[in-house]
């Protein structure tokens, strides 16, 4: 049985998030106290670097290195930012941490402030997370009252305070430069890096941006030591990762597993397998920026580098499981639809390119695609990846490329045979009455919203393919299984 080890989620579901006493009883704020009284900023950064903690927001940049870069820049004011703009469809690990263990994030941000030389922290959180905001505010009030946040923390002379900034829930604002612009009151659009936020960020000051889950790991690393943390995981990816299991899986939920756990263990042992005992087809990791993993990847250890080698990415940890009933072309179209909606429109490869990708996919799912279209998809995807301004456009074609790579057969079927084997792409399907089974009860005809079914009582009915909108109402109503999809 595969094991879950909960580090980032250590207190979620264990403590009352609105009681600071509960957090303290589980060693809360001990890491901060140790850091402030016994360790130099350099020593703390060294611990983080040795622990091998990498950014959990998706990119996987070494956290210790980021802290060090921010520390080394000279400035009169620096900022610590917590990126809580969780935007991947089907991902909710950051929300869970903020709602279940808000103090962990506050504590880690304060430690970061001590290390980087910042006295001000900002949490950028989407306004759609009202409960998380509420609990963060409660937590901040409590820690201020106890002298664990604000001026002269634990009477050590160190000052650090945290404020909340609200996002309106734009996907691109998870990208750090766009996030910073949004906090400044500007449009949430990315700018070219460098300069990286660590050098020039919020209000042009050095800004250390880390994700919620990254922060949540920090206090444990200080308390238990980098050796302990580095002993979990794989060679280049240390610690654990939280995944939000969603889709056609029995145990939908949050899991936290050591890096290097295989997809098979996550899906079949922890996730309880595929719903209805159906066959596993693919799992999308990294949301709209990621790619799909297939049966051949089931036994690949999941870590940052293996996922990239497999044409996907870690992303924030959404893991959407698909079974034989899912059409991979339609899935690629779904994600592209999301990207088209969420593209900020600043650079043309992303704004126009993704729209064209979406249109090509639409053409294929409607049964009008050609083999040239598949080549066009490939070429255009590569161009978008190479020329887009920020991470959104640089990764948005991934679902297209990885479905073409892994499921080229399905694309060919859609194009050549005008068939969708999963019976998802409706334009290519026909609802037909099986004459031997139809008893002429008229139920289907009465339920057809567009009057496409004709036939006398006790006579075999007929569906007019011109009128049919393929809603499936007839098939659902028929008590004799006399309607089939061709």
């Amino acid at each position, binding site marked *: 049985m595969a094991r879950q080890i909960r580090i980032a989620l250590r207190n979620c579901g264990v403590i009352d998030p609105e009681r600071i006493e509960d957090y303290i009883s589980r060693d809360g704020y001990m890491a901060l106290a140790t850091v402030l009284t016994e360790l130099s900023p350099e020593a703390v950064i060294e611990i983080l670097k040795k622990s091998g903690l990498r950014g959990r927001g998706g990119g996987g940049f070494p956290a210790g290195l980021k802290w060090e870069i921010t520390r080394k820049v000279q400035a009169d004011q620096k900022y610590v930012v917590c990126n809580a703009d969780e935007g991947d469809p089907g991902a909710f690990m950051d929300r869970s941490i903020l709602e279940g263990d808000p103090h962990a994030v506050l504590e880690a941000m304060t430690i970061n402030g001590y290390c980087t030389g910042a006295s001000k922290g900002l949490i950028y959180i989407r306004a759609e997370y009202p409960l998380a905001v509420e609990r963060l505010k409660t937590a901040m009030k409590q820690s201020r009252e106890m002298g664990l946040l604000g001026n002269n923390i634990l009477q050590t002379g160190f000052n650090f305070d945290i404020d909340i900034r609200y996002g309106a829930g734009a996907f691109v604002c998870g990208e750090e430069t766009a996030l910073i612009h949004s906090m400044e009151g500007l449009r949430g659009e990315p700018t070219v890096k460098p300069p990286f936020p660590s050098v020039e960020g919020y209000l042009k000051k050095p800004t250390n941006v880390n994700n919620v889950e990254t922060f949540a790991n920090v206090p*444990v690393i200080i308390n238990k030591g980098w050796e302990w943390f580095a002993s979990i995981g794989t060679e280049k990816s240390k610690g654990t990762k939280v995944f939000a299991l969603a889709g056609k899986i029995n145990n939908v939920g949050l899991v936290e597993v050591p890096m290097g756990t295989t997809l098979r263990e996550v899906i079949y042992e922890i996730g309880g397998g595929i719903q209805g005992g159906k066959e596993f087809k693919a799992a999308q990791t990294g949301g709209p920026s990621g790619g799909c993993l297939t049966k051949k990847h089931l036994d690949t250890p999941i870590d940052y580098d293996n996922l990239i080698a497999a044409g996907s990415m870690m992303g924030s940890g959404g893991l959407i499981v698909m079974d034989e009933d899912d059409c991979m072309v339609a899935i690629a179209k779904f994600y592209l639809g999301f990207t088209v909606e969420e593209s900020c429109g600043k650079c043309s490869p992303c704004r126009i390119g993704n729209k064209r990708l979406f249109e090509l996919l639409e053409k294929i799912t409607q049964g009008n695609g050609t083999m040239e279209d598949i080549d066009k998809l490939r070429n255009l995807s590569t161009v978008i990846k190479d020329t887009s301004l920020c991470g959104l456009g640089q990764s948005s074609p991934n679902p297209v490329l990885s479905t073409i790579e892994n499921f080229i057969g399905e694309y060919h079927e859609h194009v050549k045979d005008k068939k969708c084997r999963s019976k998802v792409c409706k334009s290519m399907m026909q609802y037909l009455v099986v004459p031997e089974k139809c008893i002429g009860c008229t139920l289907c005809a009465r339920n057809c919203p567009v009057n496409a079914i004709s036939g006398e009582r006790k006579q075999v009915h007929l569906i007019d393919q011109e009128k049919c909108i393929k809603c499936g109402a007839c098939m659902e109503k028929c008590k004799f299984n006399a309607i089939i999809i061709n």
Partner: protein
Amino acid sequence: MAILESIKSLTELREKLKAKQAALSQKDNPQSTIQVKVTMATCGIASGSRPVYDFMKEELSKRNIPALVSQVGCMGFCYAEPTIEVTMPGKSPVIFGFVNTKKADEIIERFIRKGEVIDGVIPMNYETA
């Protein structure tokens, strides 16, 4: 809460709280009590954990069963929300899924009062740091 003035006062507070927490679960400790944790993250509340929380709080006191009912964050069992965790003194915690007020009533009467084994238990499949 008073201002913590040093690492020492934080450590002392922690030890005090830890001891209090440990006493809650010890079988023969006079301080021990039944602990009920209800998941009250957005997901839990959306699937109906608030009425369960209120029910547990009110009914346990009405039925004269001393217990500590508290809200906690997400336990990760989204598929089985609302979930609650019940810890009897001296025993391991037991997590129940798909709890509504009817199930909560059964948990109080059969599991808590009589110690019977009842349906709806979710196997605990993780360890925490």
